[in-house]
């Protein structure tokens, strides 16, 4: 049965989405979506276990062998990302019920869950496929459903945020499509492995160079790499809280995965890093982004927005790791991709809980919550420590490898800026802590209670994971290192 797992991974949410629509109003849609997410997580876990035990899995759709047919090819890297998406999907879905009931009108909830599942389908599909065009298709599935999800936010500005995301996302997808089209023109194939084999022969042509430029810009838009991040803060701020939690922890990470995959397994490090020297552009954008966006996060008055800016900064860390193109750098980037997903998911779930109880994600809404919602805020503090990179949390592990890689390659400026941004992270996390613990609640506001258990448990699981993986790094770093070695060695 494990042989069929790759396609089952995609089928579960794909079939779940229309079924959710069919169930109509009522809570059935939620339980169905939850069941699908949990099943999806189970499959992802088995896939990762199998890949780590026996090596890559290949699955041919429709029985057509690659390069004619579409194949799903699962190695250490994408099984790791699959697990991240499925895990966050499941945890967010566990927490979703109450939050969705308070934020989404009753006649739209089943559509909401269908869109969530479709988004998950898209993200999982991007990750799992071994076909460049198929990446684009799933990219569009994920993107279209996330536009819908963001537009469901209850403020009117959600529509504008969604519209802007739609324009930017479409430009990004189109650029990627143009790039894939140019590659197809030069090589006549869409299969990634086949592309990698044929590209070196035509690597010096303008067509390939232009395709590379289009790809890099398109994917930078998708993953909100500074300075193409401007769609992200609004999208995360005005989306329903649950959607913010899911997208912030997975969507941009999957885009980063696409970049890693194209850079290392299609264009190849020799072309991308040695011939073009993309490190310089990526590295400098990442560094500027890390510092400016961390600083921008400090001055935000809405916690969702604050976290959104911090996300852009954290994307910078991942990209910085990739730009080193060394084993440690790539390991750091990949492990941070996973770790940051955990941390941001947890933090946004905390915000979702606050929005559920207090009705706002404004900093002022956090006043006095340290007393009113002690467990929730404690989880926020723990998650925040991870963002800072305090030892014994996952954030430290990622930064450790990034700094190690930066020192190895002699990028002293990068070392200094990464350390500086840790200080900035202290400040922006502190701002929330200060409001929650050191500012009294307004007297005339209604008393609030602890977040419901259904939201606390998944948040606590994620926070616990950030600490467990911060102490026992064997597993996460092991997988990330395997992926890094695979990427560097496979096609170098």
């Amino acid at each position, binding site marked *: 049965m494990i042989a069929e797992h790759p396609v089952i991974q995609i089928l579960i949410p794909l079939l779940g989405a229309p079924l959710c629509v069919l169930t109509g109003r009522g809570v059935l849609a939620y339980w169905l979506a939850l069941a699908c997410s949990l099943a999806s997580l189970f499959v992802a876990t088995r896939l990762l276990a199998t890949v780590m035990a026996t090596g890559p899995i290949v699955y041919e759709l429709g029985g057509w062998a690659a390069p004619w047919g579409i194949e799903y090819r699962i190695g250490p890297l994408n099984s790791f990302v699959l697990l991240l998406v499925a895990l966050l999907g499941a945890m967010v879905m566990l927490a979703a019920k109450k939050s969705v009931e308070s934020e989404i009108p009753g006649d739209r909830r089943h559509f909401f869950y269908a869109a969530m599942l479709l988004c998950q389908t898209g993200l999982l599909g991007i990750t799992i496929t071994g076909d460049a065009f198929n990446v684009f298709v799933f990219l569009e599935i994920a993107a279209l459903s996330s536009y819908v999800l963001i537009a469901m936010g209850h403020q009117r500005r959600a529509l504008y945020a969604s519209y802007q995301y739609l324009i930017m996302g479409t*430009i990004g997808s189109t650029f990627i499509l143009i790039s894939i089209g140019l590659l197809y023109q030069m090589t006549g194939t869409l299969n990634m492995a086949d592309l990698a084999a044929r590209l070196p022969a035509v690597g010096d042509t303008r067509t390939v160079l232009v395709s590379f430029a289009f790809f890099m810009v398109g994917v930078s838009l998708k993953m909100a790499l500074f300075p193409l991040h401007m769609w992200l803060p609004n999208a995360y701020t005005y989306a329903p809280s649950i959607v913010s939690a899911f997208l912030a922890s997975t969507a941009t990470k999957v885009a980063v995965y696409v970049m890693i995959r194209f850079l290392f397994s299609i264009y190849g490090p020799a072309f991308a890093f040695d011939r073009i020297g993309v490190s310089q552009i990526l590295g400098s954008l990442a560094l500027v982004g890390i510092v400016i966006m961390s600083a921008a996060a400090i001055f935000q008055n809405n916690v969702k927005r604050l976290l959104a800016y911090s996300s852009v900064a954290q994307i910078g860390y991942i990209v910085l790791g990739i730009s080193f193109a060394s084993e440690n750098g790539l390991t750091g980037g990949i492990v941070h991709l996973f770790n940051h997903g955990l941390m941001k998911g947890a933090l946004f779930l905390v915000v979702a809980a606050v929005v559920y109880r207090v009705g706002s994600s404004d900093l002022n809404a956090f006043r006095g919550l340290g007393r009113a919602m002690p467990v929730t805020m404690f989880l926020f503090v723990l998650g925040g420590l991870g963002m800072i990179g305090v030892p014994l949390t996952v954030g430290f592990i990622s930064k450790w490898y990034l700094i190690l890689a930066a020192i190895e390659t002699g990028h002293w400026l990068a070392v200094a800026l990464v350390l500086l941004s840790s200080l900035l992270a202290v400040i922006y996390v502190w701002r929330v802590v200060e409001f929650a613990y050191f500012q009294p609640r307004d007297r005339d506001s209604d008393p609030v209670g602890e977040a419901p258990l259904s939201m606390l448990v998944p948040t606590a699981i994620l926070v616990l994971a950030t600490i467990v993986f911060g102490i026992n790094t064997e597993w996460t770093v092991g997988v990330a290192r395997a992926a890094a070695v695979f990427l560097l060695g496979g096609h170098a």
Partner: protein
Amino acid sequence: MSNLHPALVFFAGALLVAMLRGRAQALVALLVPIVSAWSAFQLTAGTEITLSIFDYELMPFRVDRLSLLFNYLFHIAAFLALLFAWEAGDRLQRVSGLLYAGSALLAVFAGDLITLFVAWELLAVTSVFLIWARGTERANRSGMRYLIVQILSGVILLAGAILHLRETGSLAFNEIGIATLGGKLILLALGIKAAFPFLHSWLVDAYPEATPVGTVFLSSFTTKVAVYALARGFAGEPILVIVGGAMAAFPIFFAVIENDLRRVLGYSMINQIGFMVVGVGIGTDLALNGAVAHAFNDVLFKGVLMMSMGAVLYRVGHVNGSDLGGLYKSMPFTTVFCCVGAASISAFPLFSGFVSKSMVVAAVLHEHHIVVWMILLFASAGVFHHAGIKIPFFAFFSHDSGLRVKEAPKSMLFAMGIGAVLCIGIGCFPQFLYARLPWPVDYVPYTGTHVLTQMQILFFSALAFTWLKLTHLYPPELRAVHLDIDWLYRRALPATARGVAMVAERVRLFGAGLALSFVSGLQQAGRHHLGPDGIFGRTWATGSIAVWVAILLVIYLIFEYGA
């Protein structure tokens, strides 16, 4: 024989204390150091536990004579602080105090730089709550500054450790030296925690803002861990002799004019650390023994002094020298204990400071560092002046301020009393301390010459104080703030930033063209451009994002063709 890491006992104890309330909480908190001591005092030098992580061999637990000495010290200090906290403490302070003491133990048993770094950051994160527990706006801000500086020290230590690893291939925490860049960075990190000159302002900024209990904890651990680390990593670095001399001398000037008596103690703490740093810098067995022995004694007598000031703060609500006086009438026991602490820090014969400080001074004399020796003599006189006389005089004697308060709670008196007894005990029977010093001891503190010269210095200092006081040459205590190096980042930097912004605004009004664009560039870097209305914070028009897309595409294309 035991292999249990005492830090674990403290961490577990903190967890337990966090769940209890009332008297049970205070009692369990008090039991933690006792329980831990029961196993920790059985540790024997040579125990090592290694661990493989990150592809490196780490040694989170290494016991030798140096770490054992600090192990004993920290257990005693934690016990005294928690006893002191019996009445005045709360859950937050007990838990963070226990975690803080545990982190200090983690640090002294760290056999590698990574464990040291972890402990280093834990020390910062756990202790800041002792400042914040005060609950005032000033304490909040001061705590934040403290945290930033401490975390900064941590990241510098980490950077240094990584460099050290690259340069020497080892993460072991032994002799490091300042030959390499990594070593220099590590020294800088230790220097921040040890309050080297110009890096010291966090100490005098934060310690007086903490709670009465908090300052007792704070004064016991952070700087002593730093001294420990210096003794282990940088013994015999000549630069430390100079740094230590400066440390011993400059704070006493500030201490003389400072009004907040706990801040006075903060300055005198830097002064005492100066002696230890000189000892480490000399690096002979005698000097190193003197340094660590003095660290040991400093925790005790500084603890007694901080506790007595804490008791005053607890009863009176402030410790401003200008508004105190005559308290000996209502707090007689506190007065006595404070005087014992003052005598110890001033190194009166038969008090603990005498038996350890003199080791450092003697070592300096042996090595013929005449200038440093004179500075240390000056510092000895000075410390008697500001800590030995000024603290008890202005708090308990001086003119009667009319304050009539209750004597300190019994638990506080017990804590101070035990500390005072230990001070006198070590002063009278130094062999108990000497037997536990890490290096072989061949030193006799009580010689005629030594006792006589010390008495001469001290009594003539007192004579000077009396004379100055009677002739009204002595500066009165004033309710005022005195600038220190933290002025640079608390006022000068913001003011400069404001000045730049203001000048920029002027130029913007007058100028055009190049000046304009330059200034607007400056302004963009300014604060409100990052906020919700700023260039990086506000919502961008969709079109302008698209322009960026185009720009980036062009950059990529140019870059590729250039390559």
